């Protein structure tokens, strides 16, 4: 769907992005991860040509966008940014309706779509007539997302979309976003410096440093098969927590003991981390799980950790 081929960008002598190539499949969410100044935002902004690359090709839907009219290109790509960038002189409703107005949709269609999105994004109905500065930060970010989604573009670019929010709001909005139907059918490229966020939202992560790609892969690949020292060290601080969050019950299914006596349980899709949290919060001795082949298993806290360790050792030696 989106393909970058040897894309570079220089500012004078400084190379911001150096020979970056990757492709993003349809409906995939690729997260560009790295520290400040690693070139991830520059890479993102080249995809809708807010920044023009010096070298390389960027292909969206089979078309090289380097010579495409930028205005047409950008109307087809949703863009969410850290600073939100809502128009302070437009009401929330007008802010969301900017792109359809530019595309000259008829009034009724615009209104219906705006209402639909406000509902889906849990924005209070009375907020439509308000100005952005009258909303909370979290609400503003929802408006920013609604604005990007309104014309239902196939591609969505997100530049630190939760960066301006406090930790609590951030975690809850992120969860909500993850479950949002509208987002599941998008091809997304998202920039973040937050490792936890990347692991939670990404289908694949593109780890960057000094303008170059250090590793591209699924969160599991990054965790268990780091391509180089940089990739390994980058995750070291949060490694354990990430591993618990990334490994699902399904992954350790073989290592858990059978329970034929039960006939219902939690989905095996949940992470080990979530399972452990449930055990703690419910103060239960055991949890029951069922997988998609209607098998049933159960595990205590200790059994979970044991199974997880076995899985880890096995994966590493793979």
């Amino acid at each position, binding site marked *: 769907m989106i393909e970058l081929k040897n894309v570079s960008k220089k500012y004078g002598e400084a190379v911001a992005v150096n020979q970056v190539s990757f492709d993003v499949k349809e409906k995939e969410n690729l997260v560009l991860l790295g520290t400040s100044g690693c070139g991830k935002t520059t890479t993102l902004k080249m995809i*809708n040509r*807010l920044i023009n690359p010096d070298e390389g090709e960027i292909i969206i839907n089979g078309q090289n966008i380097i010579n495409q009219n*930028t*205005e*047409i*290109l*950008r*109307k*087809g*790509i949703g*863009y969410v*940014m850290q*600073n*939100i*960038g*809502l*128009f*302070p*002189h437009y009401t929330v409703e007008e802010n969301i309706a*900017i*792109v359809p107005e*530019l595309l000259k949709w008829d009034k009724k269609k615009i209104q219906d779509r705006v209402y639909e999105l406000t509902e889906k994004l849990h924005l209070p109905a009375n907020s439509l007539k308000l*100005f952005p500065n009258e909303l909370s930060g979290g609400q503003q970010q929802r408006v920013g997302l609604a*604005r990007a989604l309104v014309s239902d573009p196939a591609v969505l*670019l997100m530049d630190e979309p939760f960066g301006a929010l406090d930790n609590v709001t951030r975690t809850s909005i992120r969860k909500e976003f993850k479950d949002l139907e509208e987002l599941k059918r998008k091809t997304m490229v998202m920039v973040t410096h937050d490792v936890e966020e990347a692991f939670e939202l990404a289908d694949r992560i593109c780890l960057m440093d000094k303008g170059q790609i250090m590793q591209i892969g699924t969160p599991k690949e990054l965790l268990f098969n780091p391509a180089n020292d940089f990739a390994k060290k980058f995750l070291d601080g949060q490694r354990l927590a990430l591993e618990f969050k990334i490994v699902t019950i399904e992954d350790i299914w073989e290592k858990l003991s059978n329970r034929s006596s039960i006939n219902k349980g939690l989905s095996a899709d949940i992470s080990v981390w979530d399972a452990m949290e449930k055990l703690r919060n419910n103060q239960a001795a055991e949890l029951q799980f069922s997988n998609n082949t209607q098998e049933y298993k159960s595990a205590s806290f200790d059994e979970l950790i044991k199974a997880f360790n076995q899985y880890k050792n096995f994966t590493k030696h793979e």
Partner: protein
Amino acid sequence: MNEQQTLWQFMSMESDKLLSQTVQHIGLTFISLLFAIAIGLPLGILIARRRKLSGIILGIAGVLQTVPSIALLGFMIPILGIGAKPAIVALLIYALLPIIRNTYTGIIGIDKHIIEAAKAMGMSKSQILFKVEIPLAMPVLLAGIRTATVINVGVATLASYIAAGGLGEFIFGGISLNNTNMILAGAIPAALLAILLDGLLALTQKLDFKKLKKVLIFSSVFLIILTAFYVLPSAYGSGLKAGFTPEFMGRQDGDLGLKSAYGLKIKTVVISDAVMYKAAFSKELDVISGYSTDGRLKAFGLKILKDDKGIFPPYYAAPIVNQASLNKFPELEDVLNLLAGKITDSVMTDLNYRTDYLHQTPEKVAIDFLVKVGLYKSPKGGAGETIKIGSKIFGEQYILAEIYSMLIKGNTNYKVETKTGLGGTKICFDALVNNQIDFYPEYTGTGLLAILKPDNKIVSQISHNKDETYKYVSDEFNKKYKIKWLKPIGFNNSYALMMRQKQSSEIDVNTITDLKNYLDKN
């Protein structure tokens, strides 16, 4: 309280003039503001796009802003003549800086993320400009327009110097006539206008974006209507056009007399005497109110229309001497009288022409004149006591002071000190009364109207006749101040109506009555 009442009376008496001046003033302010916005706004946008240009353009606008307003109006005249055009251009130049600067500041002050969001949504450059940048810069931009408006209301008072009308006519007329009510009748409405417009614009700045849009549409329509106010009246009529100084406009022996004694009806603009002659020469004006011995009369080929009904009092020049000085310097009177009757109107005009137009020094003009009439004698280099000669602050008086100085040095043993440039009549006269100077050349009309100020009855009785006027001032000065009027020098530097010689002969107008008849016929 009494003052208040008379001001009110003056304003209601002159309400027609006041209204038309106010309308002109508003028109001038807004038409120039409109042009300033039309030029300043795009320039501001341009330099916000190309920041490198901002230094140069803001610099130029800043320099223009610092040019004194009178000088700026002066620069305009050779290029654009007199009247509305140069005034509008000058006002426009003053309004430019705040508009350009605030447009620029307003646009570059916008959060760059908002612009990035606009771009990312696929807005074109012009959509970003009109939907995002201008609306967001609007509060700052309006502040600039507000500043420009207030500046323009103030500077527009000066427009009356170059026949563009406005409330300055009353203000400057009042100043030259020392008429406080007249000054206030112009100054108060001008100040109120500034406060009112400033207040209105302040209100618009406080509005939110929605209402602002409506207000802007409304006010641009309003602006265009106001502008039309000014354009329409100036579009009427042809025929002859007169330009009178603010002072002349308000004097009985000026425009008022022309109306009452001659019934003269002519389209009139108010203009400063500094540019009046030039304007007549360049056919911007046909009739002007000049001084009969002004050098520019000759320089610009103008002709005086005979005052056949004698409304302009005679201004015959004569040295006036302190009696004490005559006693102290016994030879003085005879020496000064050497010049009596020697300088006619046309001779004085020629002498003035030499200094004002050929830029010869008063000394050279004085020597050349004395040599020509055979009165020149080389200085005796005497060691007697010092005679102090005074003069007012204009060319003609400088020349006379030099001539007298040379006559005294050539014919007596007195030493001479000239105190030229003693400001106006009051300063000269006070210096004479207080023995700071021994004599200076004065005019009979000035002595009568500015110093003695008798009641109107006496003025109208004697001011038709030059000899009666001379006799009256001479007797009264002697009685009141112990000052003696010596014999008149010969010329009469009075007010006069003048036209271009060529035009005057073409339409065969030689007197003011001829002019009236000509105007009535056409």
